[in-house]
């Protein structure tokens, strides 16, 4: 039995999301009931994982992506309602449908079981036709849950990205900035920030039309993204304004990155969809946070510093990089 236990635990924990939807955990110490369920569930096309005590059942539930579990009320180790309670507290990303099994049948037990987090409740002797029907309900609810999760993921992705360029949007950037500031402080690292603005966006729009302007922004965003390190961040900050986060970069390195991108953009030709390519000119304003200061850096003031640098770049003739030390300005 030791080997079977290990095998079932491995099967429960080492599998993909899709595969686990056909699996069912039966936690039941009574071998007669367990054999009965194993046989029938197998006939109905489920892969049955068995646990004969609450502790093993808990290990399997905790580590796996099991979607349906039938839990006996009375078991050595954890009892059924306790398993329900603990699993619900874990708040796993996927939903596990829990059916409590018991020979108790008072309304009080039913209520206690449901309160503990069970979805359904069956009494022994098990009526198999009833179980089959209830499992169908379980699958329906899991499917609904999966659809909801998928929709939520799509929506949250949409809410974080800029629909035109595919890079992060302004709102997401602000939360990334907070995270990176905290991390830099924790790990004692520099953090570079760059703002970039097109010098001739109006001209591109006027000459090639607005769809061309959109196409240029899209290509520009992708060009920059491809030329950043994996952990650098880029977001569209406004109309033709982009903002970049460079973890680990001090002021000189931030400036160097901007110079390199500026050069790259100068040498690039952007498709406009009109047959004529557009030449793009940009300006960068940058700043960097040094590690060390005990007090936290205000993200807004950091952006203001970079914005001020960008303003100077524009004033000094555009098509250039200006950086200002954030601490130096205080």
């Amino acid at each position: 039995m030791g080997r079977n236990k290990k095998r079932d635990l491995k099967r429960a924990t080492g599998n993909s999301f899709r595969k686990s939807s056909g699996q069912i955990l039966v936690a039941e110490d009574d071998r007669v009931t367990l054999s009965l369920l194993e046989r029938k569930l197998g006939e109905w096309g489920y892969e049955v994982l068995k646990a004969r005590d609450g502790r093993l059942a808990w290990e399997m539930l905790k580590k796996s992506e099991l979607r349906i579990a039938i839990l006996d009320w009375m078991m050595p180790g954890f009892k059924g309602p306790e398993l329900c309670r603990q699993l619900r507290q874990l708040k796993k990303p996927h939903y596990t449908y829990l059916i409590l099994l018991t020979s108790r049948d008072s309304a009080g037990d039913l209520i206690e079981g449901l309160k503990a987090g069970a979805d359904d409740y069956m009494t022994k002797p098990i009526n198999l036709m009833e179980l089959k029907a209830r499992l169908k309900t379980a699958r329906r609810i899991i499917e609904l849950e999966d659809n909801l999760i998928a929709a939520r993921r799509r929506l949250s992705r949409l809410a974080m990205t800029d629909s035109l360029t595919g890079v992060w949007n302004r709102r997401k950037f602000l939360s990334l900035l907070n995270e990176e500031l905290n991390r830099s402080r924790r790990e004692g690292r520099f953090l570079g920030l760059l703002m970039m603005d097109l010098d001739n966006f109006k001209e591109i729009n006027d000459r090639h039309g607005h769809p061309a302007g959109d196409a240029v922004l899209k290509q520009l965003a992708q060009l920059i993204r491809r030329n950043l390190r994996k952990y650098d961040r880029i977001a569209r900050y406004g109309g033709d304004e982009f903002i970049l986060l460079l973890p680990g970069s001090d002021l000189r390195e931030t400036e160097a990155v901007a110079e390199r991108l500026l050069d790259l953009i100068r040498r690039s030709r952007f498709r406009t969809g009109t047959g004529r390519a557009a030449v793009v000119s940009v300006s960068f304003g940058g700043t960097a946070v040094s590690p060390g200061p005990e007090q936290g850096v205000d993200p807004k003031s950091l952006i203001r510093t970079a914005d001020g640098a960008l303003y100077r770049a524009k004033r000094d003739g555009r098509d250039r990089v200006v950086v200002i030390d954030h601490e130096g300005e205080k």
Partner: protein
Amino acid sequence: MAASDKAELPINKPEALERIGGDESFLQELLTIYREEFEKKYAELEKAVDQKDFQTIREAGHYLKGASSNLSLPALKEAAWKMETAGASNDLQAAREVLHSLKTEYRRLQEFLKSGG
């Protein structure tokens, strides 16, 4: 035991078979498992009654109640339920008596099965 219980068969075979889709050999398999489990639990119960271990009395009674009910063994289920209750209420006297009726009902089941019932 009341007189009406004596008239009852130790196993309601049609009901048990219906539960598992009429598979006679599977029923035999389950009964074999039941036999092994019963003997194990019965030994535990004897020891527990000896040692006044009411928690084990209750748990083993509960265990046998579940197994008996899924195999449609009404008299054994009844006795197992009484055992569980005796354990829950710390009633040693009742536990002793039920131990005896559990054994009697178990023998009755085995004889019934041997006679091809």
